[in-house]
């Protein structure tokens, strides 16, 4: 066995050396470009080749030309999916961050940074989706000073602004390590506990406020989903989403980036099982919360309708079922089952957000007036997800997210 001392990279020669070392992963430009010609990248390129011009076209031609939004459907896929689903699936950042930093579950350190990166990129993509959806996005610069404090949307906007800043600061830690700025990294590390407390606080507020948005539309949101407690539901489901998304994301990451994980005594399977345990319990409680919401709203009569069937699918198939699968899988050490349950959990949250914002919204309108997304809306949403995934991959391949930087031992 070679007693190799980790080779600390020789100081790069100037900026060109820095680019080659850090950005091109030590390859020449030609080699790097050649290494990028993979089937996955080809698919991503096609998506972006159509999606980016679509995004530009939306700003040129307006919402009417690129969406199926209407006077009766003011919010569509970009709000329902890009913004609301994007934000809730990024909740892993604060759930894992809190687990590690505040509850002291050190073993989850290994997935803390990927979760925070997922959250940061998720929020950036959600904000871009929001910019695409707003009719006058340039006025976003002034919104903090207009004090629409009677509005839940004001709270959402402020908290998303603050939380994205917190996520950005948390992300600077691996960035500083990558760039080699030791003092900045050490400084950021000291701030981490404060940032984590802030992240939990801001997340609580805006995850629940996204639910509060619908409080003022009791006649438009279907009674099976409308409840005065919808903001509690959105917060708890954010925790569910965070746990499920981290299970899915770390499962994929550990397969895709397995070379980075070689040599690390990280028992990823044990972590996933642990997440499965937490997910089982939270989802179990969330299932009963949903039932309570229906009873409290006297809405049980609707269960026999078409929307009732949709509600039951969401609640039984995508909340109760994954809860039980999490429980069984975690107890019996079946990692694949836990991963599958995580996937169901993610899909369930996506379904819930889409139901609340689009499907069960304005449910009383005749079907001719109901909203169906335009293909351009779908393509732009897929484009944003693709950009997020590509950015994730770019960063993980270079920065100490899944592995430790040898110059900063013990930081991972």
């Amino acid at each position, binding site marked *: 066995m070679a007693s190799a001392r980790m080779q600390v990279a020789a100081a790069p020669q100037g900026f060109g050396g820095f680019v080659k070392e850090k950005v091109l992963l030590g390859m020449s430009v030609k080699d790097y470009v050649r290494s990028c010609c993979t089937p996955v990248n080809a698919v991503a390129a096609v998506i972006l080749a159509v999606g980016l011009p679509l995004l530009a076209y939306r700003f040129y031609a307006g919402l009417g030309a690129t969406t199926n939004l209407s006077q009766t459907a003011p919010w569509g896929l970009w709000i329902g999916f890009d913004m609301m689903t994007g934000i809730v699936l990024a909740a892993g950042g604060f759930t894992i961050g809190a687990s590690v930093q505040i509850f002291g579950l050190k073993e989850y350190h290994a997935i803390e940074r990927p979760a925070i990166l997922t959250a940061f990129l998720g929020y950036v993509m959600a904000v871009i989706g929001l910019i695409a959806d707003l009719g006058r996005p340039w006025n976003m610069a002034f919104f903090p000073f207009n004090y629409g404090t009677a509005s839940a949307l004001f709270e959402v906007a402020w908290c998303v602004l603050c939380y994205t800043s917190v996520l950005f600061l948390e992300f600077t830690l691996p960035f500083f390590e990558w760039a080699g700025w030791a003092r900045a990294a050490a400084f950021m590390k000291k701030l981490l506990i404060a940032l984590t407390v802030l992240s939990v606080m801001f997340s609580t507020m805006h995850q629940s406020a996204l639910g509060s948005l619908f409080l003022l539309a009791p006649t438009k949101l279907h009674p099976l989903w409308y409840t005065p407690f919808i903001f509690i539901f959105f917060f708890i489901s954010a925790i569910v989403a965070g746990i499920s998304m981290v299970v899915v994301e770390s499962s994929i990451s550990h397969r895709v980036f397995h070379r980075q994980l070689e040599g690390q005594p990280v028992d990823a399977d044990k972590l996933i099982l642990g997440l499965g345990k937490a997910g089982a319990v939270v989802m179990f409680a969330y299932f*009963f919360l949903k039932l309570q919401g229906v009873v409290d709203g006297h809405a049980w009569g609707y269960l026999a309708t078409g929307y009732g069937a949709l509600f039951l699918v969401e609640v039984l198939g995508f909340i109760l079922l994954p809860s039980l699968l999490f429980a069984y899988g975690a107890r019996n050490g079946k990692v694949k089952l836990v991963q599958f349950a995580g996937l169901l959990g993610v899909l369930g949250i996506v379904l819930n957000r889409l139901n609340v914002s689009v499907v069960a919204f304005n449910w009383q309108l005749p079907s001719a007036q109901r909203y169906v997304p335009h293909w351009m809306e779908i393509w732009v949403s897929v484009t944003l997800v693709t950009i997020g995934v590509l950015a994730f991959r770019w960063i993980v391949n270079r920065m100490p997210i899944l592995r430790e930087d040898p110059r900063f031992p013990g930081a991972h």
Partner: protein
Amino acid sequence: MAHDFLSIYGAKAAEYLLAIGYLLLFIPFWRYVQGARPKEAVVRAGAAAHAAAGAARTAFPGRAAGATAPSPTAGWFQVPAGVYLHPGHTWARLEADGLVSVGIDDFAHKLVGAAALELPELGTRVAQGEPALEVGDDERKVPMLSPLDGSVVAVNAAAREHPEAIDEPYGRGWLFKVKPSRLAANLRQLLEGAPARRFLEDAGEAIAFRMSPQLATVLQDGGTPIHGIARALAGDDWDQLARQHFLA
């Protein structure tokens, strides 16, 4: 969304029944989930050993809460009852005559194997956490820390002359005896019983991670390590590995 007043009572009854039902279901559900049998994960030890062995320890995942299965390294290193361990892998035992015997523990013994011992002179004052003895060979010596404060009143000459013959690190392998000066305070810093056993298990796992995958499967069969592990693992750099563990 107005509903008639009287239906409130029915709804509230249903809500509370639902909540009680949930609580009744929650208790067995929680117990079911927590009764997890931890996956006997094959330790994915790396092929390339880090020279910064500290990385192995800092990345150590720690014990899952509620794990019921014993760690595979549980039987590797022993410590008998009544023996107090110092984190530097030396031990102290109270003798009937008020003196304290000191030696190196099973882990240090197996890590270093047959090695020359440099023991303190009679009358030397030793301090807890300060180097008191050395183990090693002609080329390299690793200091080890004293587990308590006091002065050396006896030295095991046999151990010094023939270290390879001493197979009982806690019995005939005692190294020197100390007249303690701050025994009660020192004992508070030492491990005994279950915490000491767990300490040795952790040390064993830290070593296990450094092993090749082939040895890791030996782990699963409960094989025990051989003497002189440090040399087997780290070759000429065995003293670096030893220093890490002995906190020297």
